[in-house]
């Protein structure tokens, strides 16, 4: 299903009410940076595309959608086979199927080159938001609708964290910035967990590392105690 996009006007309106003195363009810009980080870290926005393999053709485009750009891959498959990105340990040799990323994730090259046509190549790419500021225009943030509905609070609180962290602005508030940053991290962890479990309630033992630890949880590394 093609991704439906929505302009982030209601999120920007919520932010304007909480950030007196902030300009709409600055809010939109920060929101786009927060959304970029959110999608890049959580793998919640995945675009899957299929196309037929062509004999002798090694390079294939990666799905590129409105306001989104690929930043990683969940899988690359053809028929019953899977392609794997090259690993630096040199363990993968022989006729193992591999793919290499070209340029800014705009295409991949399959190794070895397919020798027969007919199989379907399926690429599942992790997407993130494209840069929104280009010369002369006000930034317009177009977010994928489904993920925005599900994670609206993450975008709001992440943007509040970055905006309140600015220095010498009417909306500067370092303490609240720290508070909202923790909330944003929580939202990212939750979003990543639910995405990894296919949006079920299954438990996945994942958490972002927390080197400083907390009074409740203690340090994240074993102490031997």
């Amino acid at each position, binding site marked *: 299903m093609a991704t439906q996009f929505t302009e982030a006007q209601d999120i920007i309106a919520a932010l304007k009410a909480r950030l*007196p*003195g*902030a*300009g*709409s*363009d*600055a809010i939109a*810009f920060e929101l786009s940076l927060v959304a970029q980080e959110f999608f890049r870290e959580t793998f919640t926005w995945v675009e899957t595309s299929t196309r037929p393999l062509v004999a002798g053709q090694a390079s294939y485009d990666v799905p590129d959608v409105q306001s989104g750009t690929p930043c990683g891959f969940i899988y690359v498959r053809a028929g019953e086979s899977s392609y794997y990105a090259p690993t630096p340990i040199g363990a993968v040799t022989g006729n193992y199927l591999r793919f290499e990323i070209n340029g800014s994730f705009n295409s991949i090259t399959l190794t070895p080159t397919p020798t027969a046509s007919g199989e379907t190549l399926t690429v599942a790419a992790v997407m993130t938001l494209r840069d929104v*500021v280009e*010369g*002369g*225009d*006000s*930034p317009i943030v177009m977010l994928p609708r489904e993920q925005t509905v599900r994670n609206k609070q993450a975008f709001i609180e992440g943007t509040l964290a970055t905006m309140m962290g*600015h220095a*010498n*602005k*009417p*909306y500067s508030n370092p303490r609240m910035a720290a508070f909202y940053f923790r909330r944003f991290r929580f939202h990212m962890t939750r979003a990543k967990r639910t995405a990894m479990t296919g949006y079920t309630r299954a438990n996945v033992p994942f958490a972002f590392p927390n080197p400083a630890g907390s009074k409740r949880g203690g340090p994240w590394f074993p102490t031997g105690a």
Partner: protein
Amino acid sequence: MANRTVSNVIGRVRALLEDTRADSYRYSSDDLLNGVNDAFLEVRRIRPDLYIHKGFDVDDLTVDSVFPIDVQYFMAVVYLTAGHVMLRDDPNSNDSRAVSLLNKGISQLQSTAA
């Protein structure tokens, strides 16, 4: 007032300066326009985020130019302009008032209650 222009800024500055008699202006329109352009340079320095969509460029404005930043900072620009032109060595100007206006303009750019 949907689209405010630089001429609106100059009108408000003239009101603050008690310089509204068109037949005997103490401050010429060119002086005030220069004051407005200098005020926007100050805005750009203190609040670069307001110029994010312009690539941080500050254009030279004319009296017909549309107010180039968020209109919530209209009065800050008025205070900065009025303060700037009042710094002129002139028997009618008041240095302490000029400094107050400049500080008020800068405070409005940096804090909520100013």
